[in-house]
């Protein structure tokens, strides 16, 4: 009897030890494409995962992709998934957080690594707004479909306005001219939402790159001084939403639109949500003082979603909480193994506030 118990304990111990090993060492860090059998759900099957965004009339809607330009199957499948979601969530533009074209960038490469994967979206009139990464030729600023106005850094307002202004920065080369320009633009902006996007993450739990502390030392003081509300970056090839940092600013790393480093997220307390098992993209909707977000994997699975209240904006409810800190509300996570699929489009459900 005792021998049997010992055996049971032994087996339990083995399981726990194995679990620990998996946690400490993490899965191998590779750029390997995901297994092909997982690429058969979502848009390919003509069905969509549940959209969690509210689709408020007059809202600003956009998508986020990063580290895309390889022309590989991961990028192509993410492109298909984006096109499928665009039918349900018609976003006006896509921000690209750098490494838009890896390797050669001759016209034929621009087709293979950009125009072809996003053909459906381009045909639907979706505008792409690029920022430059460390693998990008700075002359991509001249490429018409990246809408950079021939500049390494620039700013624009979405077609629907919505009190939103976006700033594309070139973090591979932050010289004084750029920071002076950025400060001038921030100072003169009257938009409620000031959103920055760029390649190198100020906060990241990546093993390979991690937080770009030098970039943070230059940009964060400007973000705080001029109340930048949120920031999107790439460079680390995974998805990460970072808990609100100084000034209540929420930072996202969205660097797996065509590149993937499986198991590259090292656990830190700043991670609100991380996903490093597959390619992904993000959808964002801004309505009033709320920014709704949904991160979606290559296979159409929702990997993260929620709503961020604009830092500094008055919180309407609950009345008992007068602190003007951003309120981050995230619904219960959707299980990754079983994609949530709706056979026919249904009215979008609002995320459930958890507090």
């Amino acid at each position, binding site marked *: 009897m*005792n*021998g049997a*118990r*010992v055996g049971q*304990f*032994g087996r*339990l*111990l083995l399981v*726990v*030890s194995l*679990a*620990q090993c998996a*946690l400490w060492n993490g899965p191998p860090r590779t750029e390997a494409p995901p297994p092909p059998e997982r690429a058969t759900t979502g848009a390919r099957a003509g069905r969509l995962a549940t959209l969690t965004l509210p689709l408020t009339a007059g809202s600003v809607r956009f998508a986020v992709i990063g580290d895309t330009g390889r022309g590989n199957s991961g990028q192509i499948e993410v492109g298909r998934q984006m096109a499928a979601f665009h039918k349900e969530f018609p976003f006006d533009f896509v921000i690209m957080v750098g490494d838009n074209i*890896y*390797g*050669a*960038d*001759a*016209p034929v490469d621009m087709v293979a690594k950009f125009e072809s994967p996003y053909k459906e979206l381009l045909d639907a009139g979706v505008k792409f707004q690029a920022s430059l990464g*460390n*693998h*990008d*030729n*700075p*002359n991509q600023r*001249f*490429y*018409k479909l990246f809408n950079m106005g*021939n500049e390494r850094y620039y700013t624009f307002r979405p077609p629907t306005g919505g009190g939103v202004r976006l700033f594309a920065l070139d*973090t*591979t*080369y*932050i*010289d*004084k*001219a750029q*920071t002076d320009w950025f400060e001038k633009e921030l100072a003169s902006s009257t938009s409620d939402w000031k959103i920055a996007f760029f390649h*190198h993450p100020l906060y990241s739990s990546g*093993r*390979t*790159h*991690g*937080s*770009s*502390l*030098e*970039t*943070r*030392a*230059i940009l964060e003081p400007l973000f705080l001084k001029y109340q930048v509300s949120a920031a999107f970056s790439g460079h680390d090839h995974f998805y990460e939403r970072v808990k609100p940092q100084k000034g209540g600013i929420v930072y996202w790393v969205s660097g797996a639109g065509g590149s993937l480093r499986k198991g590259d997220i*090292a*656990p*830190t*307390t*700043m991670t609100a949500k991380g996903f490093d098992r597959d390619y992904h993209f993000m959808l964002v909707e801004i309505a009033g003082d709320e920014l709704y977000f949904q991160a979606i994997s290559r296979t159409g699975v929702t990997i993260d979603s929620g709503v961020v209240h604009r830092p500094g904006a008055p919180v309407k409810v609950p009345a008992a909480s007068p602190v003007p800190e951003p309120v981050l509300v995230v619904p219960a996570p959707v299980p990754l193994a079983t994609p949530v699929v709706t056979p026919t489009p249904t009215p979008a459900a609002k995320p459930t506030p958890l507090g």
Partner: protein
Amino acid sequence: MKHHAKCASRATAFMFVASLAALGLFVPATVSAQTARDKVEAAKVAKKVEKARRAGERAEKEAQEALKDFRKEVAKYERLHAVQLARLGTRDPALVQEAMARAIVSKRDDAKPGDIFERDVQPLFRRLIAEQLKGPDTAAAREAVGEGNPTEEGSPPVLVRVNAAYPAGASRSTVPPSLLLALPPLPACLQYLFVGRDLILVDSVAQIIVDFLPAAAPALVSR
């Protein structure tokens, strides 16, 4: 026999409980330690950036003579760049790179290393770079130089030679913002970049190497 089984059972139970405790306690301890390290490191880097800003201002005052010639050469190049760009006219900007490279190389076919990084200004550059990349508070800056550096990233090789093209598809080193604050500013047509430890000057449109300072950076570090 019974006693041995009991002991083994207790030992296994202890190991099981210890494993669970380690699993539950060690993970948060590790991650919070990492975050604390990040905060400490970030504070150091913020201080360093301020120091770099002051170093740049100091260099402006102290090395005016050496910088005068450097600025003169940079201004000369800027004029050449502007003239060649204007000559290309309204050509599709996406196709300008090659035409610009051809035009500038033909105008500077006798250019040699040190034409812009002249001998007199080289010690100043080496000192400013050393101040920003050597020492205990420079790890983040040295990491930045390694990130994207074509010698570190399995990128197509970059031949460091005056008038050589910066190859399409070669990755680019992140030039630490603190270093850019310390180095003499450049016009928009030129950028500093690192290839390995060499500091190069690249034409931002033609994507050719205009000049370089060999082994300017200390040994690179990778994360």
